[in-house]
């Protein structure tokens, strides 16, 4: 079989073309050479290692010192400024990193705070949390107050030759002798007992406690502690000291006048470096008198706290912290009668109980 037009051309492979002068072919890639590739890789790795150590030199030095407890060999290069430059670059990078991460942390904290403030809690839950926080704060304050009271208590010191001064009404007349006897018998410490029935702070024209106390403290410099126990004779309208106007009991005017009289006593004691232990009145059998004593307790405490005087609450001692009068105290399974039948004064056991509480507050030093 023959084609109609048999080719006269020679086969393609055998043809010769002239090199085109106007086209420049790119350099032909040299063939893959294993040795030079390995060499190149090694060079780059070494370069990276040296450059890394140059920049991280401070970290390397710190690590070396920490691990081997001697200077790293790199320290020898410190004399070349060019070498130190790398360390400065590294420090700058770490500083920049620190600032960057600090900014992120600050931003994240702000986001979390915003969420907690606006979206995390329902109003009811927020209320509960606030109450909890307030209760915790109150508990902390209570503990602080307790330790403060303890510290105050430790400061009620009597040394040989010191005296203690008892002021008050018939309640004190019952309590003071027990303490006096205890101090005299055990420590040979003398005391002054001016307690007088039917007295208080309401009627200075009948008996002026602030004046008496001031005079006694002035005349007897051995007195280091003043113990006061009064109140049941005071819940009445009383005359103002200057104007003689009638101040109605349980009015703000009455309260400020009463507190001023207490302040006179407390200031007189403070001025002479005399510590004050003030026993606040107990609950009373008669309902009206009981309520009056609860009121008096409150204003006494306010004034005494302001002066940093030691408060002994006789209600707590007698087990009537709930402000309900009780003739008896149940202690260690025993029922002890604390009060006399008038519902105001104490049985001998009651007197002793309060006397012991007072004694516990005293530190006797030779």
């Amino acid at each position: 079989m023959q084609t109609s037009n048999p080719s006269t051309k020679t086969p393609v492979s055998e043809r010769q073309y002239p090199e085109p002068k106007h086209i420049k072919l790119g350099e032909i890639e040299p063939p893959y050479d294993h040795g030079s590739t390995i060499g190149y890789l090694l060079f780059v790795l070494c370069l990276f290692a040296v450059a890394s150590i140059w920049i991280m030199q401070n970290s390397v030095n710190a690590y070396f010192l920490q691990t081997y407890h001697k200077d790293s060999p790199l320290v020898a290069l410190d004399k070349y400024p060019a070498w130190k430059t790398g360390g400065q670059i590294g420090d700058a990078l770490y500083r920049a990193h620190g600032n960057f991460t600090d900014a992120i942390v600050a931003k994240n904290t702000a986001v979390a705070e915003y969420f907690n403030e606006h979206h995390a809690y329902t109003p009811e839950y927020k209320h509960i949390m606030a109450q909890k926080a307030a209760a915790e704060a109150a508990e902390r304050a209570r503990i602080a107050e307790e330790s403060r009271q303890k510290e105050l208590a430790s400061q009620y010191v009597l040394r040989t030759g010191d005296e203690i001064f008892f002021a008050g009404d018939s309640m004190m007349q019952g309590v003071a002798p027990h303490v006096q006897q205890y101090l005299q018998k055990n420590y040979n410490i003398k005391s002054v007992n001016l307690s007088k029935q039917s007295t208080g702070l309401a009627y200075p024209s009948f008996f002026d406690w602030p004046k008496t106390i001031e005079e006694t403290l002035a005349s007897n410099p051995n007195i280091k502690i003043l113990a006061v126990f009064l109140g049941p004779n005071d819940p009445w309208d009383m005359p103002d000291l200057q104007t003689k106007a009638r101040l109605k009991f349980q009015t703000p005017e009455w309260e400020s006048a009463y507190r001023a009289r207490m302040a006179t006593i407390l200031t007189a004691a403070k001025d002479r470096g005399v510590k004050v232990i003030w026993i606040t009145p107990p609950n009373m059998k008669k309902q009206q008198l009981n309520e009056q004593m609860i009121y008096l307790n409150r204003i006494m405490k306010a004034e005494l706290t302001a002066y940093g005087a030691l408060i002994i609450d006789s209600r707590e001692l007698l087990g009537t912290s709930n402000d309900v009068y009780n003739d008896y105290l149940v202690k260690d399974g025993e029922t002890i009668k604390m009060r006399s039948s008038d519902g105001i004064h104490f049985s001998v056991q009651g007197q002793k109980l309060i006397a012991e509480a007072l004694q516990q507050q005293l530190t006797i030093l030779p």
Partner: protein
Amino acid sequence: MDAKASRNALYNHSWLGKVIGIFVTVHFVVFAFVFFRATTWAEAMGIFEALLYNHTNVGWAANPLYMLSIFLIAWLLYPIYTKATPSIVKIGARIPKIVLIPVIFVLLMTVIIFAPSGIPGFIYANF
């Protein structure tokens, strides 16, 4: 239908199948990770309980959106990166070595600077 085709049957079925497949896979891994990470059964149950019930009145100690957004970016970039890997290699081959080496060095320094100090606890070290 051979084994490989049946394994990918849901994924190849439709876009919805694809979504369901990814969803189920991711959630299974996440579910299993709770047991992987917790040291006791009670701890794992505690995590599930928190996941189910701690949706109100829980304050943030830190900002969880930060890591979540980084994960999200990584999640979105990952398929792009896998697809683009050959082209990145090609570009790298074309850049002159005198430029490429400093660029790689800067990347290395960045990794070193950002690396947490000390030896990071490797996840499988828990086994």
